[in-house]
């Protein structure tokens, strides 16, 4: 076979092989277009700072109280003070610098619309996404009223919720993650000025560690 015929034979052989993609395509064409209706059903997020995504609707403190007592108070207490180990929702303003900081809606949460987002997506515990928009606005109104952040006789809607400034709005440090925030110490020998002093050794006696025997 001449050299050119050989080359031609190789080319033909290659052409008969299934195509192996040398490069991945930029797009694969997998998946199907999401329709506006499909998106609307799942697009439940509400953005904290500007309330983007807040749905139409309105609520009030009186309706919120009725809903809260029926659906929330068993865990969160009748005044939002929390029951057992369930979280308190209201109170503790001014405690963030203390030895026992309490993180609640009026002491720690930065954004009103974030309340809407969380209550609608995750509450009541065990029956999420069961509240109507009006019901969520009412519960938010009641909670804000408990924290002296919303009057008892005023309707709460998207615009009003956007306009509310929660007490700890400016309590979060802007500018991203400041870490690493501790200087590396790589000392290998004679690293301590004084012998180590035990500062805490209660773990073995506290009795808060669960048994590590298998449950039979």
């Amino acid at each position, binding site marked *: 076979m001449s050299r050119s015929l050989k080359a031609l034979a190789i080319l033909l052989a290659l052409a008969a092989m299934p195509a192996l993609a040398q490069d*991945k395509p*930029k*797009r694969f064409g*997998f*998946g*199907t*277009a*999401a329709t506006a209706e499909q998106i609307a059903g*799942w*697009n439940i*997020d509400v*953005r*904290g*700072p500007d309330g983007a995504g807040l749905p139409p609707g309105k609520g009030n403190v009186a309706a919120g109280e009725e809903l809260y007592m029926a659906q929330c108070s068993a865990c969160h207490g009748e005044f939002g003070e929390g029951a*057992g*180990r369930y979280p308190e929702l209201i109170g503790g303003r001014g405690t*963030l*610098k203390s*030895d026992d*900081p309490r*993180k609640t809606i009026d002491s*720690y*949460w930065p954004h009103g619309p*974030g309340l809407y*987002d*969380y209550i609608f*997506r*995750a509450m009541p*515990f*065990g029956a*999420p996404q069961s509240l109507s928009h009006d019901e969520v606005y009412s519960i938010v109104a009641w909670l804000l009223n408990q924290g002296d952040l919303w009057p008892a006789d005023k309707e709460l809607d998207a615009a009003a919720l956007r306009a509310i400034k929660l007490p700890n709005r400016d*309590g*979060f*440090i802007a500018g991203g*993650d400041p*870490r*690493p*925030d*501790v200087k*590396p*110490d*790589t000392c290998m*020998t004679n*690293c*301590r000025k004084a*012998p*180590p002093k*035990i*500062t*805490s*050794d*209660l*773990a*073995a006696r*506290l009795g*808060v*560690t*669960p048994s*590590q025997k*298998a449950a039979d």
Partner: protein
Amino acid sequence: MTSPNDPSRRRFLTSSAIGGLTLVAGAGVGEAMAAGDDNLPPNVPEWMKTLGPGVTANPYGNPSAYEKNTIRRNVPWLTATEESSINFTPLHELDGIITPSGLCFERHHGGVPDIDPEQHRLMIHGLVDRPLIFTMADLMRFPSVSRIHFLECPANGGMEWKGAQMAGVQFSHGMVHCCEWTGVKLSTLLAEVGVKKSAKWILAEGADAAAMTRSIPLAKAMDDIIVCYSQNGERIRPENGYPLRLLVPGWEGNVNIKWLRRIKVGDQPWHHREETSKYTDLMPDGKARQFTFVQEANSVITSPCPEKPLKHGKGFYEIRGIAWSGYGRIKKVDISTDGGMNWRSAELQGPVLSRCLTRFRLPLQWDGRPLLLQSRAADDSGYVQPSIEALRKVRGFNSIYHKNSIHTWRVRPDGEVENVQIA
């Protein structure tokens, strides 16, 4: 029901006949055999005298019945419910760097959803050219990638900010696991939908009863995030996100959204509950850090530890432990037996991978004197695991999350090991 010819039944009968053991109803075979010297030299062990179960007995295998203590455990007083709670990896029972899927710690906010993969969908929308919905089959057609990464809850060790509290490494450090994860890179999916120029963040949302959400910078999404369908070679376990989850290498566990159903592309973070009320680090001045994603270098000695005391008196022991860093590869682990006065570098077991558990070892000739055992990890970014004092000096006592300080075990003359803190 067992038939008279069932090998396990025969083994029971033989064992009681020969060993004269009383079989308690419900007791395992192992317990019945544990007593006595019947199976020790020079005797022929029981299990050599009869056939064991055949290949159809365990279509999906389980650990030996003798390993029933190697289990996840929770701390009942920690949370109000078991559905919004956490359990802990039994680090003291594990070797190597891969956590068996069934032992990976669990953190749920609304329990484990029971998801039919045929009915599961991932929707990607927002600031994109083509909002798309993917089936599981769609996602598996894309080019795939496998990576071994640790995943750690940022509250790991969080019970110890104010003092040593948990008498066991399972509870002091067990909110970490390390698996091989397989899936499609999120950047591949984002290219498929076409991200608009104004996009800067994504919101990931789970299909659980908490519809868990977290905001993640787009740069990380385009870098190394994997949309995973497999864990340690098989489909992800339900409690770890079946059928689909995010794996965000090196970043706090909470952003690794499980049961992933939706990604929305946006131009700013959402400031949702899990990134404001929770998973923010409260500083002594009352201000809180937010979006502190990276899990900085951490390490712990898993043997000895309170669960694994030095039981054999003076002599040789191997100190064993694990180190990991969300910044990159573990470069060095130093061990101190005298509370940080002097340090020796441990041997690192390869492969040493980025954002992955690394196993370390150091021989110890124990003379029976008390020890203050510590490990200190350093990574290839130059970061060195700090002391609890150094960490508290900057962050105080109430930041809950990201406590990665050098841990201290006190070894007593009787070999028992206690969780202590030193200054």
